[in-house]
């Protein structure tokens, strides 16, 4: 059992190492434009959204200072933006052009490992982008979170990215046309920005929508993080539902991948 577990772990690391190196090379090959985008996004978000909304809403409905609310929200948004192109590229763009993904699935790995590997590697990159943006926010304003709060935010961000990553993989695999994918992407971004409580609190929505948004799984990690900021209590039980969903979603995406590749 132990040996089998070790072997599975080694196999997985082989795939993850290959995918990580691929991302490292991709960054190296396009370093300047990628760095420019990476540095510009947090600044644009802070200047155009943060500064203006700060003059409209000084405190949240629960009395939290707006900066304490919105800066973590920005980090979630930046990580989402970082995650999107990675998954879009492999599961939509390159897939429909029959590149890379078809080659990866022929390697000796289970499809579930392939999905899991892509999720982990794109999640790690998105978290790194989030951490870099923490540095940028610290440089251009005062970063409002303590070290413990920041670490817990990264835990919640990881779970959020696994959920969002699964969602993006599903739509990336299911859709075959650019126009449909563009529309769905636009809707997804609106949803990321306004449907997760990153910028607008759920309390501002009508009750029915408020309840729906609170229960939609992708918003839960951010809610747990905010509850921790407010109450200093970690509501672990709230994280179980999205965590279980991640596992089932990986299995569902594996089925979709097999179906799409006619395996």
């Amino acid at each position, binding site marked *: 059992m132990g040996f089998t577990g070790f072997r599975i772990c080694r196999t997985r690391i*082989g*795939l993850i*190492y*290959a995918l990580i*190196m*691929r991302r490292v*090379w*991709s960054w190296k*090959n*396009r370093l300047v434009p990628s760095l420019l985008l990476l540095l510009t996004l947090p600044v644009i978000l802070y200047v155009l959204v943060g500064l203006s909304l700060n003059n409209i809403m000084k405190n949240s409905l629960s009395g939290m200072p707006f900066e304490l609310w919105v800066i973590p929200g920005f980090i979630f948004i930046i990580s989402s933006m970082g995650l999107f192109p990675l998954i879009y590229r492999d599961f939509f763009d*390159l897939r429909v052009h*029959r*590149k*890379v993904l*078809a*080659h*990866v699935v*022929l*390697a*000796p*790995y*289970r499809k579930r490992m392939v999905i899991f590997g892509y999720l982990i590697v794109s999640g790690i990159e998105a978290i790194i982008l989030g951490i870099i943006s923490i540095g940028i926010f610290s440089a251009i304003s005062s970063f409002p979170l303590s070290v413990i709060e920041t670490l817990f935010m990264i835990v919640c961000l990881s779970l959020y990215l696994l959920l969002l990553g699964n969602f993006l993989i599903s739509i990336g695999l299911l859709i075959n046309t650019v126009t449909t994918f563009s529309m769905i992407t636009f809707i997804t971004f609106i949803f990321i920005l306004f449907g997760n409580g990153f910028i607008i609190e759920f309390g501002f929505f009508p009750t029915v929508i408020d309840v729906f948004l609170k229960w939609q799984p992708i918003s839960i990690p951010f809610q747990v993080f905010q509850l921790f900021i407010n109450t200093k209590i970690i509501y672990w039980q709230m994280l179980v539902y999205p965590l279980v969903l991640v596992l089932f979603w990986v299995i569902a995406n594996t089925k979709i991948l097999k179906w799409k*590749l*006619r*395996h």
Partner: protein
Amino acid sequence: MEASITLKKVGKLVGDKTILAGLNFGVERGSLVAIVGVNDSGKTTLLKLLSGFENPNYGQVFIHGLDMDKRRQETRKLIGYVPHENDLDPWLTLEQNIRFTSNLYKVSKSTASARIFRYADALNLTQYLNELAMNVSHGTQKKTMLVRELVHDPDVLIMDEPTGYMDAESIRLTWDLLKELKGNKTIVYVSNALVEIEQAHDRILVFHEGQILMDGHLDKLLESTLDYHQFQIEFENLSKALYKKLANVATVVSPNRLDNIFHFYGRTRNVFFDVIRTASDELMIDLNVKKLGLWDLLDSEFAGRGLD
């Protein structure tokens, strides 16, 4: 000799259409096998089944005696698949694309470097290794795809149009390498470059409508056509009446026309004189006679009904 690939009653359907129908055949270890046939005859589908890219609807595929369906992870390590179309990551360099595969298959860095050096050198690819995949020609991409598969040292190499998009020198280098690898690796490929297949001179599987129509070495396949010759006569004016008259000559086989050229096959050279006699009043511009080759064998009319 030991079997490298074995197919047992393998069938593939797409919707209601049968692409492959109950295929049974084996490929010996270290052999070089060409699969030829008309378009949509199921050649590429067969390669996808052999590479593990698609699963059969029924039947079994064995690689080195291992059932591909039940021993998926093990058999995949044994196979390298080079598809027809470029599937490289356009944003990585050629070397990075190759190393990505070596990492996927957990080949050590030093071993990968040695193999990249060896195969890139053999294919005259070294100077392009640091170029982005999207910036090089299709032929160079194709050579990279071959090196990419060889870097994990598969026992079985499955290739769809191995020299597709390549220039004459690259075709020669690729075939030199494939002939060098033959013996150590089982190589199965689909190609429409019949001259190259004739030169490779190894086992040929002729496919038609999802089934193997002919199987054997070139000489054996051409045995049935040895007596036949292909004739072409260009007239100044090949009228409908003349064409009909010539086509009705009893010894003429598979008559055809292209503008003023009358094209036909015949079992003996005497057929030619039968035709000449029939058309003795007409002005002829050009004559051509040749023995039949693989191209003629694969001509769809022959594949459908044979010379007789």
